């Protein structure tokens, strides 16, 4: 019985399976079940989890909501691009725009409070990657992705774009402050 010839036993599906092979099948099956249970366990008890909340939107609609939010909550401007720093009301909602090649605005959050961050793109597909905590979320044009976040430590966090979006991709950096 060679792999390059037709099976020598015509009724190959009636041949018994060797003990060693059963052992491997058993190991693979048990491991698969463990991982399956882990995924559900992690979804319920894990500390970083995905949001189920998303809406269809348009760049215009999302930008209008974001601009209103920024106008009401800006506390100062930063960097040579004059990007507004927005203090998000405690336990409130925040809007973050991804566009070529900028995260807009800079958000200021408070440690221990829960926020709902609304994410959308004005143009291409972008990737929200919060560093160094390594939280990664797709930012797709036409979709408003709402993510719940509770900062657990204070400091300055960087937002890196992790989905290729053209020539300025590597310079698309943003910031979140946690007080």
């Amino acid at each position: 019985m060679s792999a390059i010839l037709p099976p020598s036993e015509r009724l190959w599906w009636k041949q018994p399976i060797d003990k060693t092979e059963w052992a491997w099948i058993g190991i693979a099956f048990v491991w698969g079940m463990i991982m399956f249970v882990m995924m559900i366990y992690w979804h319920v008890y894990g500390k970083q989890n995905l949001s189920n909340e998303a809406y269809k939107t348009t760049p215009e609609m999302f930008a209008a909501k974001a601009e209103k939010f920024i106008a009401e909550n800006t506390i100062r401007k930063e960097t040579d691009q004059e990007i507004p720093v927005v203090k998000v009301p405690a336990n409130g909602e925040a809007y973050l725009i991804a566009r070529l090649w900028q995260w807009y605005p800079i958000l200021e959050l408070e440690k221990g409070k829960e926020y709902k961050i609304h994410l959308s793109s004005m143009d291409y597909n972008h990737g929200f990657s919060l560093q160094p905590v390594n939280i990664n979320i797709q930012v797709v044009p036409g979709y408003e992705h709402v993510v719940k976040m509770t900062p657990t430590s204070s400091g300055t966090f960087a937002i890196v774009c992790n989905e290729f979006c053209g020539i300025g991709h590597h310079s698309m950096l943003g910031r979140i402050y946690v007080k």
Partner: protein
Amino acid sequence: MATTYRTCPISGLQFEKNAETLMRWNAVVGVLWLLVGGITALLVILTRWPAIKLLPADQFYTILTAHGIDMLILWILFFEMAVLYFASSTLLRCRLATPMLAWAGFWLMVVGGIITNIAIFQGGSSVMFTSYVPMMAAPHFYLGIILVAVGALIGTGVFFGTLIVAKRDQTYTGSLPLVTFGALTAAIIAVFTILCGAGILIPTLLWSMGFIKEIDAQLYRMVWWALGHSSQQINVAAHVSIWYLTAAVVFGAKPLSEKVSRGAFLLYILFLQLASAHHLLSDPGMSAEWKVLNTSYFMYFAVMA
């Protein structure tokens, strides 16, 4: 074309002349794409290496796009065609179903591959392997990939045809050899993959030419990954078959159990596609339950396989 056979003095395998020439051309062109992919890989490494930082951003993104396409589509698909012709014509000791069509498929793939590479190296199509909309490449970028896909689909059809020829001419008795069975697995996955690819890249081509106004970015991501992920699974099914082949030819090894090996290939066909969902884990629009189900429970059947 006349059918003539020769027996390889080393392996004792019997090669049909048309099939052998096709195998050689497909394999050699595949390896040439691997070479281009390898050179671009070197340029990627030398740019990402902070001490050297060889290329500026625009050139870097161009060669990174070329690297992805040449490695993940062209090298894999060309070599896959050689494997399919070998697993059917040589292992079943029969003629190739329609050598003329196989050549048509081959040349479509060659022309398509070159067109896409021209689009990339002209600089206006640095959109990466994924080419997520609405980032737009030149129309001939998509056109080239579509031609390659059509060519590969023809090659897969010739493979299926050859299986029928062998069955009809009774060149073997009983079931297909395991390696051919594995190649059949790869071919079935290839048909699914190529049709999904056509399903998203043809509208994208029309969109880049201005005939369609908009393509939903999330829909693109979902359908595209049925191409992007599954195309690598064609490769997995084919290379597992080659492992069996190598073990059989070099060591005279035989599979422990035909039943288990074939069952594994079958599970792979049935459940593998769901695994594409792991590329959509952090996307908006799909529920957490959908993500958990698609990337775990059923995918494990494929992983087990």
